[in-house]
Protein backbone atom coordinates (compact mmCIF):
# COMPACT_ATOMS: atom_id res chain seq x y z
CA UNK A 1 0.00 0.00 0.00
CA UNK A 2 1.57 3.30 -1.10
CA UNK A 3 -0.33 5.56 1.30
CA UNK A 4 -2.50 4.96 4.38
CA UNK A 5 -4.45 7.14 6.80
CA UNK A 6 -3.43 10.24 4.92
CA UNK A 7 -4.99 13.36 6.37
CA UNK A 8 -3.55 16.76 5.58
CA UNK A 9 -4.80 20.22 6.36
CA UNK A 10 -3.45 22.91 4.11
CA UNK A 11 -4.48 26.47 4.88
CA UNK A 12 -5.65 28.78 2.16
CA UNK A 13 -2.96 31.11 0.89
CA UNK A 14 0.02 29.18 2.23
CA UNK A 15 2.85 27.36 0.53
CA UNK A 16 2.80 23.84 1.86
CA UNK A 17 5.70 21.45 1.39
CA UNK A 18 5.19 17.72 1.25
CA UNK A 19 8.42 15.92 2.03
CA UNK A 20 9.56 12.35 2.13
CA UNK A 21 12.13 9.95 0.71
CA UNK A 22 11.73 8.17 -2.62
CA UNK A 23 8.81 5.79 -2.58
CA UNK A 24 7.25 7.36 0.51
CA UNK A 25 4.00 8.02 -1.35
CA UNK A 26 4.27 11.75 -2.15
CA UNK A 27 3.35 11.53 -5.84
CA UNK A 28 0.68 8.91 -5.13
CA UNK A 29 -0.87 11.26 -2.56
CA UNK A 30 -0.97 14.13 -5.05
CA UNK A 31 -2.41 11.83 -7.70
CA UNK A 32 -5.15 10.74 -5.29
CA UNK A 33 -6.00 14.34 -4.47
CA UNK A 34 -6.23 15.08 -8.19
CA UNK A 35 -8.34 12.02 -8.98
CA UNK A 36 -5.63 10.40 -11.11
CA UNK A 37 -5.35 7.45 -8.72
CA UNK A 38 -8.28 6.02 -6.82
CA UNK A 39 -7.77 5.14 -3.16
CA UNK A 40 -8.22 1.43 -2.45
CA UNK A 41 -10.28 2.52 0.55
CA UNK A 42 -11.75 5.78 1.82
CA UNK A 43 -12.17 9.01 -0.08
CA UNK A 44 -10.04 11.92 -1.14
CA UNK A 45 -11.43 15.43 -0.80
CA UNK A 46 -9.92 18.64 -2.04
CA UNK A 47 -11.39 22.14 -1.73
CA UNK A 48 -14.37 20.54 -0.02
CA UNK A 49 -15.24 18.33 -2.99
CA UNK A 50 -14.45 14.80 -4.05
CA UNK A 51 -11.21 14.49 -5.97
CA UNK A 52 -13.23 13.06 -8.88
CA UNK A 53 -15.33 16.20 -9.17
CA UNK A 54 -14.59 17.70 -12.58
CA UNK A 55 -15.94 21.15 -11.68
CA UNK A 56 -13.55 21.57 -8.74
CA UNK A 57 -10.63 21.15 -11.13
CA UNK A 58 -11.41 24.59 -12.52
CA UNK A 59 -9.87 25.82 -9.27
CA UNK A 60 -6.85 23.51 -9.39
CA UNK A 61 -3.60 23.66 -11.32
CA UNK A 62 -1.10 20.81 -11.56
CA UNK A 63 2.48 20.49 -12.70
CA UNK A 64 3.29 16.79 -13.00
CA UNK A 65 6.75 15.51 -12.17
CA UNK A 66 8.90 15.45 -15.30
CA UNK A 67 6.38 17.38 -17.42
CA UNK A 68 5.89 15.99 -20.94
CA UNK A 69 3.48 16.97 -23.68
CA UNK A 70 3.02 16.80 -27.45
CA UNK A 71 6.46 17.74 -28.71
CA UNK A 72 5.15 19.37 -31.90
CA UNK A 73 3.20 22.09 -30.09
CA UNK A 74 4.83 25.49 -29.70
CA UNK A 75 4.98 27.05 -26.25
CA UNK A 76 2.14 29.41 -27.17
CA UNK A 77 0.00 26.62 -28.63
CA UNK A 78 0.50 24.49 -25.53
CA UNK A 79 -0.70 27.25 -23.23
CA UNK A 80 -3.65 28.04 -25.50
CA UNK A 81 -4.64 24.38 -25.54
CA UNK A 82 -4.51 24.05 -21.77
CA UNK A 83 -6.34 27.35 -21.40
CA UNK A 84 -9.12 26.09 -23.66
CA UNK A 85 -9.32 22.86 -21.67
CA UNK A 86 -9.86 25.07 -18.62
CA UNK A 87 -12.71 26.87 -20.34
CA UNK A 88 -10.81 30.00 -21.44
CA UNK A 89 -11.43 31.51 -24.83
CA UNK A 90 -10.21 33.95 -27.49
CA UNK A 91 -9.44 37.37 -26.01
CA UNK A 92 -8.92 35.96 -22.54
CA UNK A 93 -6.25 33.59 -23.84
CA UNK A 94 -4.59 36.19 -26.06
CA UNK A 95 -4.16 38.34 -22.98
CA UNK A 96 -3.14 35.61 -20.54
CA UNK A 97 -0.66 33.55 -22.60
CA UNK A 98 1.97 36.30 -23.16
CA UNK A 99 1.81 37.18 -19.44
CA UNK A 100 2.52 33.57 -18.52
CA UNK A 101 5.33 33.21 -21.04
CA UNK A 102 6.93 36.33 -19.60
CA UNK A 103 6.42 35.05 -16.07
CA UNK A 104 8.37 31.85 -16.75
CA UNK A 105 10.97 33.55 -18.93
CA UNK A 106 10.00 31.86 -22.19
CA UNK A 107 8.84 34.86 -24.24
CA UNK A 108 11.80 34.58 -26.65
CA UNK A 109 10.95 30.89 -27.15
CA UNK A 110 7.20 31.26 -27.59
CA UNK A 111 7.25 30.02 -31.20
CA UNK A 112 9.58 27.09 -30.55
CA UNK A 113 8.20 23.58 -30.55
CA UNK A 114 8.57 21.61 -27.34
CA UNK A 115 10.99 19.12 -28.89
CA UNK A 116 13.47 22.00 -29.09
CA UNK A 117 13.10 22.65 -25.36
CA UNK A 118 15.61 21.60 -22.71
CA UNK A 119 14.39 19.79 -19.60
CA UNK A 120 14.45 23.04 -17.66
CA UNK A 121 12.41 24.84 -20.32
CA UNK A 122 9.86 22.02 -20.25
CA UNK A 123 9.55 22.44 -16.49
CA UNK A 124 8.95 26.16 -16.96
CA UNK A 125 6.28 25.72 -19.62
CA UNK A 126 4.76 22.98 -17.46
CA UNK A 127 4.56 25.44 -14.60
CA UNK A 128 2.92 27.99 -16.89
CA UNK A 129 0.23 25.51 -18.02
CA UNK A 130 -0.55 24.78 -14.37
CA UNK A 131 -1.20 28.49 -13.79
CA UNK A 132 -3.00 29.32 -17.03
CA UNK A 133 -6.46 29.65 -15.44
CA UNK A 134 -5.24 31.34 -12.24
CA UNK A 135 -6.19 28.42 -9.98
CA UNK A 136 -6.92 28.73 -6.27
CA UNK A 137 -4.89 25.63 -5.45
CA UNK A 138 -1.74 24.61 -7.27
CA UNK A 139 -0.04 21.22 -6.97
CA UNK A 140 3.59 21.25 -8.02
CA UNK A 141 5.36 17.91 -8.17
CA UNK A 142 9.12 18.49 -8.15
CA UNK A 143 8.87 21.86 -9.93
CA UNK A 144 12.57 22.65 -9.75
CA UNK A 145 13.99 19.33 -10.88
CA UNK A 146 16.11 19.83 -13.96
CA UNK A 147 16.38 23.58 -13.44
CA UNK A 148 19.58 25.57 -13.18
CA UNK A 149 20.00 28.01 -10.24
CA UNK A 150 18.43 30.85 -12.24
CA UNK A 151 15.49 28.65 -13.13
CA UNK A 152 15.05 27.65 -9.50
CA UNK A 153 15.07 31.27 -8.46
CA UNK A 154 12.46 32.04 -11.09
CA UNK A 155 10.21 29.18 -9.97
CA UNK A 156 10.59 30.29 -6.36
CA UNK A 157 9.52 33.81 -7.33
CA UNK A 158 6.56 32.49 -9.32
CA UNK A 159 5.45 30.37 -6.36
CA UNK A 160 5.66 33.34 -4.01
CA UNK A 161 3.74 35.47 -6.51
CA UNK A 162 0.97 32.88 -6.42
CA UNK A 163 0.79 33.14 -2.63
CA UNK A 164 0.64 36.92 -2.93
CA UNK A 165 -2.40 36.72 -5.18
CA UNK A 166 -4.06 34.47 -2.57
CA UNK A 167 -3.50 31.05 -4.10
CA UNK A 168 -2.49 27.99 -2.10
CA UNK A 169 0.54 26.03 -3.29
CA UNK A 170 1.10 22.37 -2.48
CA UNK A 171 4.74 21.66 -3.20
CA UNK A 172 6.26 18.24 -3.49
CA UNK A 173 10.04 18.41 -3.63
CA UNK A 174 13.25 16.63 -2.81
CA UNK A 175 15.21 19.85 -2.78
CA UNK A 176 14.98 20.71 0.89
CA UNK A 177 16.91 23.93 0.51
CA UNK A 178 14.27 25.15 -1.92
CA UNK A 179 11.47 24.04 0.36
CA UNK A 180 13.07 25.75 3.34
CA UNK A 181 13.17 29.15 1.68
CA UNK A 182 9.80 28.81 -0.04
CA UNK A 183 7.34 26.96 2.18
CA UNK A 184 5.34 28.19 5.14
CA UNK A 185 4.63 24.73 6.51
CA UNK A 186 5.73 21.21 5.70
CA UNK A 187 4.53 17.68 6.36
CA UNK A 188 6.79 14.64 6.33
CA UNK A 189 5.58 11.39 4.87
CA UNK A 190 7.28 8.07 5.54
CA UNK A 191 6.17 4.64 4.36
CA UNK A 192 2.85 6.10 3.25
CA UNK A 193 2.00 7.83 6.52
CA UNK A 194 2.34 11.45 7.57
CA UNK A 195 4.77 11.29 10.50
CA UNK A 196 5.37 14.97 11.31
CA UNK A 197 4.33 18.54 10.55
CA UNK A 198 6.49 21.60 10.96
CA UNK A 199 5.76 25.29 10.78
CA UNK A 200 8.83 26.70 9.07
CA UNK A 201 8.07 30.32 9.93
CA UNK A 202 7.97 29.41 13.62
CA UNK A 203 10.92 27.08 13.11
CA UNK A 204 13.23 29.98 12.31
CA UNK A 205 13.00 30.95 15.96
CA UNK A 206 12.59 27.37 17.15
CA UNK A 207 14.83 24.38 17.50
CA UNK A 208 18.52 25.18 17.76
CA UNK A 209 21.54 22.94 17.76
CA UNK A 210 24.47 24.05 19.96
CA UNK A 211 28.04 22.87 19.49
CA UNK A 212 30.02 23.22 22.73
CA UNK A 213 33.71 22.60 23.47
CA UNK A 214 34.31 22.37 27.18
CA UNK A 215 36.41 20.66 29.84
CA UNK A 216 35.20 19.35 33.17
CA UNK A 217 31.75 18.36 32.02
CA UNK A 218 30.33 16.13 34.75
CA UNK A 219 27.61 13.54 34.23
CA UNK A 220 25.37 15.55 36.55
CA UNK A 221 25.90 18.70 34.48
CA UNK A 222 24.86 16.88 31.31
CA UNK A 223 21.90 15.22 32.99
CA UNK A 224 20.75 18.67 34.14
CA UNK A 225 20.53 19.83 30.53
CA UNK A 226 17.33 17.84 29.98
CA UNK A 227 15.43 20.85 31.33
CA UNK A 228 16.17 22.66 28.02
CA UNK A 229 17.55 20.19 25.53
CA UNK A 230 15.85 17.47 23.52
CA UNK A 231 19.13 15.62 22.91
CA UNK A 232 22.73 15.79 24.14
CA UNK A 233 25.73 13.86 22.77
CA UNK A 234 29.15 14.03 24.39
CA UNK A 235 32.27 13.10 22.46
CA UNK A 236 35.42 13.94 24.44
CA UNK A 237 35.41 17.68 24.91
CA UNK A 238 32.68 18.14 22.32
CA UNK A 239 29.08 18.32 23.42
CA UNK A 240 26.29 18.69 20.87
CA UNK A 241 22.85 19.43 22.14
CA UNK A 242 19.52 20.45 20.71
CA UNK A 243 17.26 22.93 22.39
CA UNK A 244 13.76 24.13 21.65
CA UNK A 245 14.43 27.85 21.54
CA UNK A 246 17.23 30.39 21.37
CA UNK A 247 15.75 31.85 24.59
CA UNK A 248 17.17 28.84 26.46
CA UNK A 249 20.79 29.52 25.48
CA UNK A 250 21.79 31.88 28.39
CA UNK A 251 20.31 29.43 30.93
CA UNK A 252 22.24 26.53 29.41
CA UNK A 253 25.48 28.49 29.47
CA UNK A 254 24.93 29.56 33.11
CA UNK A 255 24.08 25.97 34.08
CA UNK A 256 27.30 24.57 32.58
CA UNK A 257 29.51 27.26 34.16
CA UNK A 258 27.80 26.79 37.54
CA UNK A 259 28.46 23.03 37.23
CA UNK A 260 32.21 23.78 37.00
CA UNK A 261 32.79 23.35 33.25
CA UNK A 262 35.38 25.46 31.39
CA UNK A 263 33.70 26.64 28.19
CA UNK A 264 35.98 27.26 25.16
CA UNK A 265 33.33 27.34 22.43
CA UNK A 266 29.57 27.81 22.47
CA UNK A 267 28.14 27.90 18.91
CA UNK A 268 24.38 27.89 18.34
CA UNK A 269 23.17 26.87 14.89
CA UNK A 270 19.60 26.63 13.59
CA UNK A 271 18.69 23.11 12.57
CA UNK A 272 18.31 22.96 8.82
CA UNK A 273 15.34 21.31 7.20
CA UNK A 274 17.73 18.69 5.90
CA UNK A 275 18.84 17.85 9.45
CA UNK A 276 15.22 17.69 10.51
CA UNK A 277 14.40 15.50 7.55
CA UNK A 278 17.22 13.09 8.38
CA UNK A 279 16.20 13.02 12.01
CA UNK A 280 12.57 12.22 11.17
CA UNK A 281 13.27 9.74 8.39
CA UNK A 282 16.14 7.95 10.12
CA UNK A 283 18.84 6.07 8.27
CA UNK A 284 18.52 5.38 4.55
CA UNK A 285 17.43 1.77 4.35
CA UNK A 286 17.81 1.69 0.58
CA UNK A 287 14.97 1.29 -1.89
Amino acid at each position, binding site marked *: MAVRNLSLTVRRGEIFGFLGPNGAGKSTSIKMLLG*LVKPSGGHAFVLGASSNNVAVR*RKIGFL*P*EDFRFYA*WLTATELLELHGRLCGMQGAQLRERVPVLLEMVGLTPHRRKQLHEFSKGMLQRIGLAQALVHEPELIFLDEPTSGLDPMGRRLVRDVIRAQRERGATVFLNSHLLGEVEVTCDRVAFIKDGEVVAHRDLRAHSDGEVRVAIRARGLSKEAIAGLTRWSTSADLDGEHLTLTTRSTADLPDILRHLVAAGADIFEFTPDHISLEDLFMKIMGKDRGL
Partner: protein
Amino acid sequence: MGVWIMAGVTFREAARKKLLWAAFLAGLAFLILFATGMHFQHKSLETRAVAPFLRYQLVNSFLQVGFYAIDLLAVIMTVLTSVDTISGEISSGTIHAMATKPIGRWQILVGKWTGLVGMVVAYVALLFGGVVAIGYFIGSVLQQNLIRGALLIILECLLMLSVTLLSGTWFSSLTNGVVVLGLHGLAFIGGWIEQIGEFTNSPSLVNLGILSSLIMPSESLWRRAIFEMQSPVARSLPFGPFSQAVAPSLTMVGYAGVYLISSLALAIRHFEQRDL
Protein backbone atom coordinates in the same frame (compact mmCIF):
# COMPACT_ATOMS: atom_id res chain seq x y z
CA MET B 1 -16.50 21.41 -25.75
CA GLY B 2 -13.70 19.28 -24.27
CA VAL B 3 -14.44 16.58 -26.84
CA TRP B 4 -13.90 18.96 -29.75
CA ILE B 5 -10.72 20.41 -28.27
CA MET B 6 -9.32 16.90 -27.82
CA ALA B 7 -10.55 15.88 -31.27
CA GLY B 8 -8.76 18.85 -32.83
CA VAL B 9 -5.46 18.24 -31.07
CA THR B 10 -5.64 14.48 -31.78
CA PHE B 11 -6.29 15.08 -35.47
CA ARG B 12 -3.32 17.44 -35.58
CA GLU B 13 -1.22 14.97 -33.59
CA ALA B 14 -2.08 12.18 -36.04
CA ALA B 15 -1.51 14.44 -39.05
CA ARG B 16 2.01 15.20 -37.81
CA LYS B 17 2.97 11.56 -37.50
CA LYS B 18 5.40 10.41 -40.15
CA LEU B 19 3.55 7.14 -40.14
CA LEU B 20 0.40 8.76 -41.50
CA TRP B 21 2.29 10.43 -44.30
CA ALA B 22 4.12 7.19 -45.04
CA ALA B 23 0.70 5.54 -45.27
CA PHE B 24 -0.49 8.32 -47.60
CA LEU B 25 2.61 7.90 -49.74
CA ALA B 26 2.12 4.13 -49.78
CA GLY B 27 -1.50 4.71 -50.81
CA LEU B 28 -0.46 7.17 -53.49
CA ALA B 29 2.19 4.79 -54.79
CA PHE B 30 -0.42 2.07 -54.89
CA LEU B 31 -2.86 4.28 -56.81
CA ILE B 32 -0.18 5.16 -59.38
CA LEU B 33 0.68 1.49 -59.81
CA PHE B 34 -2.97 0.58 -59.95
CA ALA B 35 -3.74 3.29 -62.53
CA THR B 36 -0.83 2.12 -64.67
CA GLY B 37 -2.03 -1.48 -64.45
CA MET B 38 -5.57 -0.42 -65.28
CA HIS B 39 -4.31 1.57 -68.25
CA PHE B 40 -2.47 -1.40 -69.73
CA GLN B 41 -5.32 -3.78 -69.03
CA HIS B 42 -7.79 -1.45 -70.70
CA LYS B 43 -5.48 -1.03 -73.70
CA SER B 44 -5.03 -4.77 -73.99
CA LEU B 45 -8.77 -5.38 -73.83
CA GLU B 46 -9.42 -2.75 -76.50
CA THR B 47 -6.73 -4.15 -78.80
CA ARG B 48 -8.20 -7.61 -78.52
CA ALA B 49 -11.71 -6.26 -79.03
CA VAL B 50 -13.05 -8.16 -76.02
CA ALA B 51 -16.82 -8.22 -75.74
CA PRO B 52 -18.16 -5.40 -73.49
CA PHE B 53 -19.74 -7.82 -71.01
CA LEU B 54 -16.52 -9.75 -70.50
CA ARG B 55 -14.51 -6.55 -70.43
CA TYR B 56 -16.76 -5.22 -67.66
CA GLN B 57 -16.21 -8.39 -65.62
CA LEU B 58 -12.43 -8.28 -66.03
CA VAL B 59 -12.14 -4.59 -65.11
CA ASN B 60 -14.50 -5.21 -62.23
CA SER B 61 -12.29 -8.00 -60.90
CA PHE B 62 -9.26 -5.78 -61.24
CA LEU B 63 -11.02 -3.11 -59.20
CA GLN B 64 -11.78 -5.64 -56.48
CA VAL B 65 -8.02 -6.12 -56.13
CA GLY B 66 -7.69 -2.37 -55.73
CA PHE B 67 -10.30 -2.23 -53.01
CA TYR B 68 -8.66 -5.15 -51.23
CA ALA B 69 -5.33 -3.30 -51.20
CA ILE B 70 -6.78 -0.05 -49.85
CA ASP B 71 -8.75 -1.93 -47.21
CA LEU B 72 -5.55 -3.56 -45.99
CA LEU B 73 -3.68 -0.24 -46.02
CA ALA B 74 -6.52 1.52 -44.20
CA VAL B 75 -6.78 -1.11 -41.47
CA ILE B 76 -3.02 -1.14 -40.85
CA MET B 77 -2.83 2.67 -40.89
CA THR B 78 -5.76 2.90 -38.44
CA VAL B 79 -4.16 0.51 -35.97
CA LEU B 80 -0.64 1.91 -36.21
CA THR B 81 -1.66 5.57 -35.81
CA SER B 82 -3.92 4.89 -32.84
CA VAL B 83 -1.99 2.15 -31.05
CA ASP B 84 0.03 4.65 -28.99
CA THR B 85 -2.79 7.14 -28.43
CA ILE B 86 -3.95 6.17 -24.94
CA SER B 87 -1.37 3.63 -23.81
CA GLY B 88 1.63 5.74 -24.85
CA GLU B 89 0.23 8.86 -23.19
CA ILE B 90 -0.36 6.96 -19.97
CA SER B 91 3.13 5.48 -19.89
CA SER B 92 4.83 8.80 -20.77
CA GLY B 93 2.75 10.77 -18.26
CA THR B 94 1.44 13.13 -20.98
CA ILE B 95 -2.06 12.21 -19.89
CA HIS B 96 -1.57 13.69 -16.40
CA ALA B 97 -1.70 17.30 -17.53
CA MET B 98 -4.88 16.62 -19.53
CA ALA B 99 -6.72 14.39 -17.06
CA THR B 100 -6.40 16.98 -14.30
CA LYS B 101 -8.08 19.67 -16.35
CA PRO B 102 -11.79 20.37 -15.80
CA ILE B 103 -12.96 17.88 -18.41
CA GLY B 104 -14.16 14.33 -17.88
CA ARG B 105 -11.95 11.45 -18.85
CA TRP B 106 -14.68 10.29 -21.22
CA GLN B 107 -14.30 13.58 -23.09
CA ILE B 108 -10.59 12.91 -23.52
CA LEU B 109 -11.21 9.44 -24.92
CA VAL B 110 -14.18 10.35 -27.11
CA GLY B 111 -12.28 13.42 -28.34
CA LYS B 112 -9.32 11.30 -29.31
CA TRP B 113 -11.61 8.80 -31.00
CA THR B 114 -13.34 11.60 -32.92
CA GLY B 115 -10.05 13.10 -34.07
CA LEU B 116 -8.83 9.72 -35.28
CA VAL B 117 -12.17 9.07 -37.01
CA GLY B 118 -11.63 12.26 -39.00
CA MET B 119 -8.22 11.04 -40.09
CA VAL B 120 -9.44 7.52 -40.95
CA VAL B 121 -12.41 8.79 -42.96
CA ALA B 122 -10.18 11.19 -44.89
CA TYR B 123 -7.69 8.41 -45.63
CA VAL B 124 -10.29 5.89 -46.78
CA ALA B 125 -12.17 8.51 -48.80
CA LEU B 126 -9.01 9.52 -50.62
CA LEU B 127 -7.88 6.00 -51.48
CA PHE B 128 -11.35 4.66 -52.17
CA GLY B 129 -12.14 7.67 -54.34
CA GLY B 130 -8.84 7.11 -56.13
CA VAL B 131 -9.66 3.50 -57.01
CA VAL B 132 -13.19 4.44 -58.13
CA ALA B 133 -11.85 7.30 -60.26
CA ILE B 134 -9.24 5.05 -61.87
CA GLY B 135 -11.94 2.46 -62.63
CA TYR B 136 -14.23 5.10 -64.11
CA PHE B 137 -11.82 7.28 -66.07
CA ILE B 138 -9.33 4.64 -67.23
CA GLY B 139 -11.28 1.38 -67.14
CA SER B 140 -14.66 2.96 -68.02
CA VAL B 141 -16.31 0.93 -65.26
CA LEU B 142 -18.29 2.19 -62.30
CA GLN B 143 -19.01 -0.48 -59.74
CA GLN B 144 -22.33 -0.86 -58.00
CA ASN B 145 -23.11 0.05 -54.39
CA LEU B 146 -19.98 2.17 -54.02
CA ILE B 147 -21.31 4.28 -51.15
CA ARG B 148 -22.35 1.16 -49.28
CA GLY B 149 -18.94 -0.40 -49.91
CA ALA B 150 -17.07 2.70 -48.75
CA LEU B 151 -19.21 2.96 -45.61
CA LEU B 152 -18.55 -0.69 -44.76
CA ILE B 153 -14.79 -0.23 -45.15
CA ILE B 154 -14.96 2.90 -42.98
CA LEU B 155 -17.01 0.95 -40.44
CA GLU B 156 -14.34 -1.75 -40.43
CA CYS B 157 -11.64 0.85 -39.75
CA LEU B 158 -13.71 2.47 -37.00
CA LEU B 159 -14.22 -0.93 -35.44
CA MET B 160 -10.45 -1.48 -35.46
CA LEU B 161 -9.96 2.00 -34.03
CA SER B 162 -12.40 1.42 -31.16
CA VAL B 163 -10.86 -1.95 -30.31
CA THR B 164 -7.38 -0.40 -30.41
CA LEU B 165 -8.42 2.35 -27.99
CA LEU B 166 -10.10 -0.21 -25.73
CA SER B 167 -7.00 -2.38 -25.71
CA GLY B 168 -4.88 0.75 -25.18
CA THR B 169 -6.63 1.43 -21.87
CA TRP B 170 -5.36 -1.96 -20.65
CA PHE B 171 -2.06 -2.67 -22.37
CA SER B 172 1.20 -0.99 -23.35
CA SER B 173 1.52 0.23 -26.95
CA LEU B 174 3.42 -2.82 -28.19
CA THR B 175 1.10 -5.34 -26.53
CA ASN B 176 -1.86 -3.33 -27.78
CA GLY B 177 -0.64 -3.60 -31.39
CA VAL B 178 -0.07 -7.34 -31.03
CA VAL B 179 -3.52 -7.88 -29.49
CA VAL B 180 -5.43 -5.87 -32.10
CA LEU B 181 -3.60 -7.14 -35.17
CA GLY B 182 -3.80 -10.65 -33.71
CA LEU B 183 -7.58 -10.30 -33.44
CA HIS B 184 -7.78 -9.03 -37.02
CA GLY B 185 -5.61 -11.95 -38.15
CA LEU B 186 -8.00 -14.32 -36.41
CA ALA B 187 -10.94 -12.71 -38.20
CA PHE B 188 -9.09 -12.95 -41.53
CA ILE B 189 -8.40 -16.67 -41.13
CA GLY B 190 -11.94 -17.20 -39.86
CA GLY B 191 -13.32 -15.59 -43.02
CA TRP B 192 -11.37 -18.03 -45.17
CA ILE B 193 -12.46 -21.00 -43.06
CA GLU B 194 -16.07 -19.93 -43.47
CA GLN B 195 -15.73 -19.64 -47.25
CA ILE B 196 -13.98 -22.99 -47.54
CA GLY B 197 -16.73 -24.46 -45.36
CA GLU B 198 -19.38 -23.07 -47.72
CA PHE B 199 -17.47 -24.34 -50.76
CA THR B 200 -17.00 -27.85 -49.32
CA ASN B 201 -20.44 -27.84 -47.73
CA SER B 202 -19.02 -28.31 -44.25
CA PRO B 203 -21.28 -26.79 -41.56
CA SER B 204 -18.61 -27.27 -38.88
CA LEU B 205 -16.14 -25.12 -40.81
CA VAL B 206 -18.82 -22.50 -41.48
CA ASN B 207 -19.69 -22.36 -37.80
CA LEU B 208 -16.02 -22.07 -36.89
CA GLY B 209 -15.71 -19.17 -39.34
CA ILE B 210 -18.80 -17.49 -37.90
CA LEU B 211 -17.44 -17.96 -34.39
CA SER B 212 -14.21 -16.22 -35.34
CA SER B 213 -16.29 -13.39 -36.85
CA LEU B 214 -18.17 -13.11 -33.59
CA ILE B 215 -14.86 -12.84 -31.73
CA MET B 216 -13.70 -10.14 -34.15
CA PRO B 217 -16.09 -9.04 -36.92
CA SER B 218 -13.67 -6.76 -38.81
CA GLU B 219 -13.06 -9.11 -41.75
CA SER B 220 -16.81 -9.68 -42.11
CA LEU B 221 -17.25 -6.01 -42.90
CA TRP B 222 -14.66 -6.17 -45.66
CA ARG B 223 -16.26 -9.31 -47.07
CA ARG B 224 -19.68 -7.66 -47.02
CA ALA B 225 -18.24 -4.53 -48.67
CA ILE B 226 -16.67 -6.46 -51.52
CA PHE B 227 -19.84 -8.54 -51.89
CA GLU B 228 -21.87 -5.36 -52.26
CA MET B 229 -19.58 -3.89 -54.91
CA GLN B 230 -18.81 -6.93 -57.03
CA SER B 231 -20.76 -7.75 -60.17
CA PRO B 232 -23.47 -10.46 -60.11
CA VAL B 233 -21.21 -12.71 -62.21
CA ALA B 234 -18.35 -12.42 -59.73
CA ARG B 235 -20.76 -13.38 -56.97
CA SER B 236 -21.42 -16.63 -58.77
CA LEU B 237 -17.72 -17.57 -58.71
CA PRO B 238 -16.61 -19.93 -55.93
CA PHE B 239 -14.49 -17.73 -53.63
CA GLY B 240 -11.30 -15.85 -53.36
CA PRO B 241 -9.83 -12.88 -51.54
CA PHE B 242 -11.35 -10.47 -54.03
CA SER B 243 -14.76 -12.03 -54.50
CA GLN B 244 -17.33 -13.50 -52.18
CA ALA B 245 -19.72 -16.31 -53.05
CA VAL B 246 -21.32 -16.06 -49.63
CA ALA B 247 -21.41 -12.73 -47.88
CA PRO B 248 -21.70 -12.15 -44.17
CA SER B 249 -25.31 -11.32 -43.32
CA LEU B 250 -26.63 -7.90 -42.48
CA THR B 251 -27.09 -9.26 -38.97
CA MET B 252 -23.30 -9.68 -38.81
CA VAL B 253 -22.92 -6.08 -40.01
CA GLY B 254 -25.29 -5.00 -37.23
CA TYR B 255 -23.31 -7.11 -34.77
CA ALA B 256 -20.13 -5.35 -35.88
CA GLY B 257 -21.83 -2.00 -35.22
CA VAL B 258 -22.82 -3.13 -31.72
CA TYR B 259 -19.27 -4.48 -31.23
CA LEU B 260 -17.85 -1.07 -32.18
CA ILE B 261 -20.13 0.85 -29.82
CA SER B 262 -19.54 -1.66 -27.01
CA SER B 263 -15.77 -1.43 -27.47
CA LEU B 264 -15.92 2.34 -27.24
CA ALA B 265 -18.21 2.21 -24.20
CA LEU B 266 -15.93 -0.32 -22.47
CA ALA B 267 -12.88 1.79 -23.33
CA ILE B 268 -14.55 4.83 -21.73
CA ARG B 269 -15.56 2.82 -18.67
CA HIS B 270 -12.12 1.35 -18.12
CA PHE B 271 -10.35 4.64 -18.82
CA GLU B 272 -12.64 6.36 -16.28
CA GLN B 273 -11.84 3.77 -13.62
CA ARG B 274 -8.18 3.01 -14.06
CA ASP B 275 -5.32 4.71 -12.26
CA LEU B 276 -3.23 7.06 -14.36
